[in-house]
């Protein structure tokens, strides 16, 4: 079996959506880099792109123009939402020095959809290899699948370990680490995760134990400042449900059989996001997770102009109300602006959770 290079100097390939099968890049000797623009503040209008669309896309576009992602060999777009589909067009028109690929990704989970997606992944693999003047070998793909699976397993174990003692690692710190790992070669990232896991044993608590245990849900959330507000308000984030959180690391790819089918099957049937017509649905899966992490509240950070998740919110509120789980809905424009207003609402929510738990204890 060929050995995949594991060098920091590997060429990098960008991805945006968690439905991107990054194993293909790894098999092609590329380091997958999540295009994370959580640290930039849009400070000038860009006439190329409409104002009333996903602020994550606008931020990535701006950062790409500033060459903020460093040298990347190309970008893969998944047709995950309408805006992302058009972002592919914009990238092609204005950032064509970094070739863009579009992967048709079904929104359903039938066997036919999996087969269709498997073919699409295979074609993409061949095209990527061809464009890079190489052939991506099946052995390399198996190795990549194994590497990414290892990373997934490690991150899952880290979440489980932290769940037992959330005070050992503030969620904001975990978030910073995850963001870093999402742009590293999976085998390097796995090593890092394992070090963190090993360090958790006997580690002194970094934060006080609070009664407010919250699951944080969103479509995407890279603004650590927002998470810190929660922690400062006495909230312990015990779990998450968003594209670049634990959901991204859910479910391993089977390492037997046809690799393309296995990849398609894993990506379409993993913990779904709001784009998928899935069974269980995104909302059902969220409810299961809230129960699993024993959260006593949910904070939903809505990304402005994200239609798919926006349509989930009223149903989430209804489901949580039925289960008497308090939910706070706040909106974010993929920047750390408006923190003062958010602070007031988050503190009020934290207090309310504390009072409710006190009331239950008194009873």
């Amino acid at each position, binding site marked *: 079996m060929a050995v995949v290079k594991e060098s920091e100097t590997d060429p990098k390939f960008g991805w945006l959506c968690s439905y991107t099968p990054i194993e293909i890049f790894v098999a092609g000797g590329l380091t997958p880099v999540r295009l994370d623009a959580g640290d930039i503040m849009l400070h000038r209008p860009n*006439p*190329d*792109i*409409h104002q*009333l*669309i*996903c602020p994550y*896309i606008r931020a990535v576009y701006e950062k790409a123009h500033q060459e903020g992602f460093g040298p990347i060999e190309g970008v893969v777009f998944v*047709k995950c*939402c*309408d*805006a992302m*589909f*058009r*972002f*592919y*067009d*914009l990238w*092609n*028109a204005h950032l064509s020095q970094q070739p863009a690929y*579009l992967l*048709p990704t*079904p*929104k*359903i989970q039938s066997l*036919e*959809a999996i087969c*269709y997606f498997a*073919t*699409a992944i295979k074609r993409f693999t061949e095209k990527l290899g061809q464009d890079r003047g190489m052939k991506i070998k099946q052995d390399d793909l198996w190795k990549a699948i194994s590497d990414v699976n290892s990373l997934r397993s490690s991150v899952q174990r880290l979440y489980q370990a932290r769940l037992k003692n959330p005070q050992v690692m503030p969620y904001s710190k975990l978030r910073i680490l995850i963001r870093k790992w999402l742009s590293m070669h999976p085998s390097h990232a796995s090593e890092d995760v394992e070090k963190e896991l090993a360090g958790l044993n006997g580690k002194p608590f970094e934060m006080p134990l609070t009664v407010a245990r919250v699951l944080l849900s969103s479509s995407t959330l890279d603004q650590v400042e927002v998470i810190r507000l929660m922690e400062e308000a006495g909230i312990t984030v015990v779990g998450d449900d968003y594209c670049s959180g634990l959901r991204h690391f859910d479910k391993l790819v089977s390492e037997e059989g046809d690799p393309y089918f296995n990849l398609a099957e894993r990506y379409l049937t993993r913990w779904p996001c*709001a*784009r998928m*017509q899935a069974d269980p*649905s995104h909302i059902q899966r969220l409810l299961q997770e809230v129960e699993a992490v024993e959260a006593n509240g949910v904070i939903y950070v*809505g990304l*402005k*102009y994200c*239609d*798919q998740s*926006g*349509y*989930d*919110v*009223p*149903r989430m*509120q209804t489901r949580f109300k039925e289960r008497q789980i308090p939910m706070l809905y706040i909106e974010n424009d993929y920047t750390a602006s408006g923190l003062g207003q958010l602070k007031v609402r988050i503190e009020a929510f934290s207090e309310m959770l504390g009072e409710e738990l006190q009331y239950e204890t008194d009873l």
Partner: protein
Amino acid sequence: MRQIYESYGKYADETLQRGPNARAMMYREIARTGLAAFEPGAKVVWTTSYDLPMVLYWPFGVVPFNFEYGGLFLAAGGRAAEALAASNNLGYPVDSCSIHRMTMGAEELGFFPHADLLISTTHFCDGKTKCNEVFREKYGVPFHIIDTPLGEDEGALDYVEGQLRKVFDALCELTGRQYDESILKEPVGNYNRVLTLMEEVNTLRKQKPAPYLSGNRGFSMTMVGNMLYGRPELVSVYEQYVKELIAAPREGGPDGGERFRLLWLGGNPTYPNNLFETFREFGARIVAEVLTFDMMYPLSEEKPLRSISEWMLNSRFRRSVRELIDAILKRVAEFQIDAVVSFSHLPCRTANTALYLIKERLNAKGIVFMDLEADLCDVTTFSPDKTRTAIENYIQMMSTSRDPS
């Protein structure tokens, strides 16, 4: 909704008493099929008409109901404020597409007929898919969403056709019919006859000067007409439409004669507005709509489901902006267009995200791109004065480019 359909029926009857009229004939059919959904025992299928040709439904005797169009009709009937408020009250995002907010609000207010079956597509758009998801949970009726891929190869066609066959099965089950694809032969034949007439319409509108049509008549014929694809009545509607175009004034007419030729891109505002009055004042005639050409893919009587799959994959809504620009430029050349009018529905991510690319390419070719922004349903986003000023400026640009002196 019932009242809206009744008002269409009344308008049609009154208009038709004065003689044949294609628009009135079309609305008479819309009213008839729409009201049928409220009849006891009616089997109603909530679906989408611009992404899945309606020929599929008529042989089963079911009533297809396009909830997005339901929302648009209600907005046109002056019910937008209450439906949008109901949607806001439910917690749906206020910055999402007002067509879907109308849908959610109108459904909550009980305006829509009941649903026996939900059939839709994943593309286009995200809002439509999410509405279907909500309705599936709410009604608990069988739900079939056809995942529409981006490719057009045999694999993509097989994938769509396979899903269509399941939809066909579901319709058989709902109505107790045996699986027999040949029942689609007649509606497909009707649709293809309409296509021939649509070609005649286009040929007539390519004439310079083009026949004068009031308002945005061509657009509404396509937009509303696609709900009747496969009905024999639509053949008569289009036969009458062709006659009207032949008889319509070329020189002179209510706009004083054609000065500028416009291609319409995007949707049409549902509320009363001054757009078309202003165009008329300046002799700016809308001679074609991009939407029309998206609805004109021929179907096969021998292999109807396969060709419906092709129809679906041919949709511009799933094409790249580059391909859309090529299609626009083709029409610009064929119809000798001076300006492309984009009535940009503000919350539409598909239409707007890369809209600037269209403007850039057209301007580079010396074609004026009239970008008129507002919302299709929500009149509060529309400013008649601002719109008039914008149109005047674009007219000035066209006049200057034609005669720089």
